[in-house]
């Protein structure tokens, strides 16, 4: 009895981390409350830590979960809610609701991976469905920020590419684990092509990178990666020659990236304002609630990282980057502990997709690479994006649960004395 009690009270780094996160969000929302004495902020100051506690520790009581991964994800999601709430309270609250939906979807994904024996029978359905869903905006899509990759119904719009991500990860991992290369790579190429036609270059880049990383992980062939990169380069060059008007947008983005200061009030406005917001923040930030990052167009979406750097400082921004890196490393650890090639590849794909997404958008923010309009996982405003990012974490969790089940099985076998047939 006493032993059990001691065990429960023991402070592990994970638990200490969750309490630190709770303190962080209590202080942050309380600070916002002090700004204009809005009672909503005070309520959030009490509610968000509780939600974080439930999301990190509570959920892991429901099913076997990787608590550390959950805690990290929760911190980032709550940070997103905080920053969005500070910029515009409605968006923050919507994001909190989306977070709830996302957690439910995450649990669904975890259970799917944990208990689905094989994806052999649904693989083709996944592939066909993905291509159909991706191509749907070409027929009934609406344009948003120049990318024609949105579907809207009932007044809400979403990007099919966010959902197809999951199907892509599962299908690629499944087929590559069966040592097929041509079909999965062709499938990925078709997806990338459709996205490029829709002018959604960020997502296209993301899909492309993930497919190459997974292809490399499965085959270990540098040739494949080279062929993929070469093929993409050839496609860009050819496309530029055949239909230059289609590529004008991409080329203008590259030009803006090379020198955004040429047209500070025009094409370069967004990135210049982002850079200025980060420079205003400097290393330590201007303080939560004291910045004026709302001047950046799409500050709640593509440029949320600039907002974070503006208000919390570059050091904190780097801490956030490190958190993404740790999520990625955790995903890779799960992948390396996996029992089967499919699960190893799936976890790798999830980790790589998140990491690449973070790289593409933060790199765009800090002008390391040309800016493309994709979201920062967990933090950016947007229901589909948040749900799909949480689902990716769910897939990782599923693999982790499989690993745990495998270890349990091994332990039972060892208890029986091992032995031979």
């Amino acid at each position, binding site marked *: 009895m006493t032993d059990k009690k001691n065990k429960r009270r023991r402070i592990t780094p994970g638990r200490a981390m969750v309490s630190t996160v709770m303190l962080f969000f209590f202080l942050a929302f309380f600070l916002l409350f002090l700004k204009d004495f809005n009672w909503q902020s005070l309520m959030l100051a009490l509610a968000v830590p509780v939600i974080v506690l439930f999301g990190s520790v509570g959920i892991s009581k429901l099913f076997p979960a990787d608590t550390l991964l959950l805690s990290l994800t929760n911190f980032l999601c709550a940070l997103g809610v905080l920053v969005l709430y500070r910029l515009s309270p409605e968006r923050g609250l919507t994001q909190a609701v989306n977070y709830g939906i996302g957690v439910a979807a995450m649990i669904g994904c975890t259970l799917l991976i944990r208990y689905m024996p094989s994806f052999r029978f649904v693989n083709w359905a996944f592939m066909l469905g993905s291509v159909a869903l991706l191509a749907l905006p070409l027929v009934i899509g609406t344009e948003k920020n120049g990318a024609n990759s949105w579907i809207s119904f009932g007044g809400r719009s979403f990007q099919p590419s966010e959902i197809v991500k999951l199907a892509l990860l599962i299908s690629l991992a499944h087929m590559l684990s069966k040592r097929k290369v041509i079909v999965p790579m062709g499938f990925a190429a078709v997806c990338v092509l459709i996205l490029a036609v829709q002018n959604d270059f960020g997502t296209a880049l993301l899909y492309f990178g993930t497919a190459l990383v997974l292809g*490399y992980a499965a085959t270990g062939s540098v040739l494949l990666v080279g062929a993929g990169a070469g093929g993409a380069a050839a496609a860009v060059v050819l496309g530029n020659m055949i239909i230059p008007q289609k590529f004008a947008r991409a080329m203008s983005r590259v030009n803006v990236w090379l020198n955004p200061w040429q047209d500070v009030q025009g094409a370069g406005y967004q990135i210049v304002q982002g850079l200025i917001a980060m*420079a205003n923040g400097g290393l330590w930030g201007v303080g939560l609630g004291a910045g004026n990052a709302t001047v950046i167009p799409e500050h709640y979406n593509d440029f949320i990282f600039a907002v974070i750097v503006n208000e919390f400082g570059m050091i904190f921004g*780097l801490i956030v980057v490190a958190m993404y890196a740790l999520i990625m490393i955790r995903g890779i650890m799960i992948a390396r502990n996996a029992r089967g090639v499919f699960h190893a590849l799936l976890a790798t794909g999830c980790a790589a997709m998140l990491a690449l997404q973070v790289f593409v958008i933060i790199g765009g923010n800090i*002008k390391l690479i040309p800016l493309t309009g994709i979201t920062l996982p967990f933090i950016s405003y947007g229901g589909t994006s948040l749900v799909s990012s949480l689902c990716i974490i769910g897939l990782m969790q599923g693999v982790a649960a499989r690993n745990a089940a495998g270890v349990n099985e091994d332990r039972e076998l060892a208890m029986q004395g091992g032995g031979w047939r």
Partner: protein
Amino acid sequence: MKQVKNNIRRVCIFLCILFVLLAVYGGYSITVNGNRWFSSGANTFVRSKKKDVIAGNILDRNGNFLAFNDVQTTAEGTKTTRLYHQDAAVRRAMVHVVGDREGNVNNGVESFMASSLYGFQMSLVERFSCFMRGVQRTGDNVHLTLDSRLCAMASGLFPQGKAGALVVMNYETGEMLAEISLPQYDPMNITWQAKSDPQKPFYNRAVQGLYAPGSTFKIITAASAFENYADAATRAWQCTGQLQVGDRFVTDAGTDLAAGKIVSHGQLTLQRAFQVSCNNTFAQIALSIGDQKLKKTAESFGFNDNFLFRDVVVENSAYPRENRTEREVAWTGVGQSTLTATPLHMCMVAAAVANDGVMMEPYTVMRTQAADGRQRTEAESRVYRTAMKPETAQVLKGYMRSVVQTGTGTAAQIAGVKVCGKTGSAEVDTQENTNAWFVGFLDEPAHPYAISVVVEDAGGGGSVAAPIARQVFQWMLNNGY
């Protein structure tokens, strides 16, 4: 399985590299470019905070107020007006460095040092004490290394109505004593004429003007000859007056092929060629060294580099990289072709020769002081790069001395002082006359000053720019520099 796991490890390393790249580039760009972005005119944050703070003063090296505030306390509250130096000539001479209220000049101290002037450098404790005392915050004072009297005097030396620029720097430390650009305007009285003037008075030619360096580039061509040929000093060159490159000719100043008038120097050494600024010889040198080696030397002098100096924002000088024909290479050796450099950069080139090949980083802000007189930052001199070997610098110093003694730059002579220099007359297609250049320095340990003068559309460097340099040096020697 094992293979897949090994690959996954490599994937992990790759992804980690991406994250490290993000962190390193993010940290690097915010520390290196942060102030440039912050002081941009598009920064609405600074604008929104300006009203809360009384801006700091800008002073020159002798403590003269170049920009200050007039605080009037009325019944409605305090009203602050930004004022500039009372003497119109000084005001006009310093306007490109200091900037104005409207931010017409890019990267003037008023905008580039905004983080100091508007109190963004104040610590939390200082801000808190201001808040508790209930006083309005006052920004830091910025002390410049420039001498406003020198700038005003030098502005008067330029021919009437001519555009141009002049830079004086201490070649041992890199501090700038004068930086002027013409035409100038009055920051207290900005007229619409100034805004629509085709000569663009808002343009700071000393750091933003990209000129063909003309014959002053021969310093670099000669340095390249020394780096690449051991016998460069003794080798004999043949000047025929017209060097055929392809179907065109490289000629010397004064030659008129149509009229059959050819200026030639005959057989001569590198020193003599440098003295008389023989295009023919330097074109031959450029051709025999080759484009790549010449480019390497030019890059060691800072061409094609992205200048990121502390508080001086300089346009990057360009040594052309692409589509090089022999003719262009030949003309590059003479300083024409599509070469571009700013007057400040050419001043740094002369300074490197004077300072045994070491180029110092130029700076204009000597120190910043808090409103209560406490020192906030103090500039220290830094080396920008080593441009050439000390031996090469020694020889070039002798060459530049001989230019002033008996060559094209005799107009810069001052009795009893070792003036060294190189003239230049850069041809510009759209202009009737050449741009007059003079870069030089005083080879006196007690007076370590380098100068660069450009007068647009004015004629020969020896006749227009060199006398200006002489008068500036003379003034400086008379006034205790």
